[in-house]
């Protein structure tokens, strides 16, 4: 019944979509990090109404499953875009929206909330004295950001961000709903062609695991390098 050779063949087939999946996950990670940082910054300004609105949005995004958001975006994004561009008299055909764009938008929004929490936590870990020390040495705001805040916050946020990266890679298996083929979707396609789903899914699990092991290794190395001079 269970054929190890088929597992190997499936494994090779699945590897073909790994670069694309990783790239997609990376784009989502970068976008959600940027968006998350923006959210954190806006929240730190403590603007009365804006703060509450973002707070509600955050809890909404945190509480809804990705798949629900994906449906919502799939059905509403084309319409929203068409309406928005209509304001600037740009004609937009809602049917021309690329499915990859839908996935990127959905997941970036969804994970930005988690990223903003990660960044907030990292900022909290930063000693206020350091900023004061830098300022007293005559550093400009940009210099304080570049030389003091960002390196330390990055290092603090790195493990969690990496974790988020793995979570995004795994969550992308939902993207097949809107025709984006990731690792898991490829496994299903391979399984459908050979009618050996079990073997294909075992292969997919191995691919995921391999990615996780590799990434963990790379990040550990990176973190050790970054920690030099701070420890």
């Amino acid at each position: 019944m269970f054929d190890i050779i088929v597992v190997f063949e499936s494994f090779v087939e699945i590897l073909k979509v790994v670069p694309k999946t990783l790239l997609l996950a990376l784009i989502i990670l970068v976008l959600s990090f940027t968006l998350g940082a923006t959210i954190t910054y806006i929240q730190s300004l403590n603007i009365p109404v804006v703060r509450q609105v973002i707070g509600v949005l955050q809890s909404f995004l945190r509480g809804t499953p990705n798949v629900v958001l994906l449906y919502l975006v799939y059905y509403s994004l084309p319409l929203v875009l068409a309406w928005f561009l209509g304001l600037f008299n740009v004609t937009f055909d809602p049917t021309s929206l690329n499915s990859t764009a839908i996935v990127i938008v959905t997941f970036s929004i969804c994970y930005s909330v988690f990223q903003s929490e990660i960044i907030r936590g990292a900022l909290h870990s930063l000693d206020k004295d350091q900023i004061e020390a830098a300022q007293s040495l005559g550093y400009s705001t940009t210099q304080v950001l570049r030389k003091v805040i960002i390196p330390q916050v990055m290092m603090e946020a790195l493990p969690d961000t990496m974790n988020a990266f793995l979570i995004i890679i795994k969550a992308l298996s939902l993207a097949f709903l809107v025709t984006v083929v990731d690792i898991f979707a490829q496994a299903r396609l391979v399984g459908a062609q050979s009618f050996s789903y079990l073997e294909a899914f075992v292969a997919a699990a191995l691919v995921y695991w391999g990615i996780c092991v590799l990434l963990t290794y790379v990040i550990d190395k990176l973190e050790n390098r970054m920690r030099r001079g701070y420890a």
Partner: protein
Amino acid sequence: MKRLLLSISFAAVLLVLAACGGEEESAEGAEESGEVRTVEVAVSSSSRPLSYVGDDGELTGYEPELLRAIDEKLEGYEFNMEGASDSAGEIGLDTGQYDMLAQGLILSPEREESYLVPDESNGPSLMKIFATGDQEGEIESLDDLQGKNVVPVTPTGGVFNLLNGYNEEHPDNQIEFDTSDGGIPTSDRLQEVNDGVYDALVHPSNLGQQEIIEEAGLDIHVTEPVEINPTYFLIHDSEENTELRDKVSEALAELKEEGTVSELSNEFYGEDILQYEE
């Protein structure tokens, strides 16, 4: 007073409990004392009218009702139906978690090799193309789908195999199509075809599209069947299941003979699909 009330209600509860227990006992006594094997059957739970969960929360539809009719005919077997998604059903059948799979399945050489298949089909499935209204005359068969925007296809199922098979046979007239998970409901897919997001949906026609088209007042051109395939129940390949397969085949043949299949078909599809059987 309070105490009296308490004891009365307590007695009432006891009575109710006793009544329930009595009922259960009599039900158990009524069962046959023979060996009854429970057969786990995976069915679709969201493909109306082929197989779906009714208003009362029970599985119903053409296939579940047919299975119930077969169950009645088979002595020594009891079917336990469970809703499962496409690939989950097929994996469960591979591993033996399910003994039988009913999802409007069309045979393929691989399936014949991996599973036990009854000799008797459970009715044909008609593949039709549902095209945007203005494509009438433009899209009438699979040959016309080249260069058209086809609704994404799930990688488990007859449509996927049909289109792949077509592409293998017609290397110079390739149909391009994307695959996707079967998460977007057929009704929305039809709406998208209506709106021109896609030109055409290739789909088995026994899944209630006509109802959707009429109810939503969609402008959709439905072609003649582009393919007619008998669908089968698939059974997990094991020694003890060979007898089950033979019995299911027998029961299906009898049900067709008696007109039960036609009745169910009329009830759920609004036509007798047996007329298309070759």
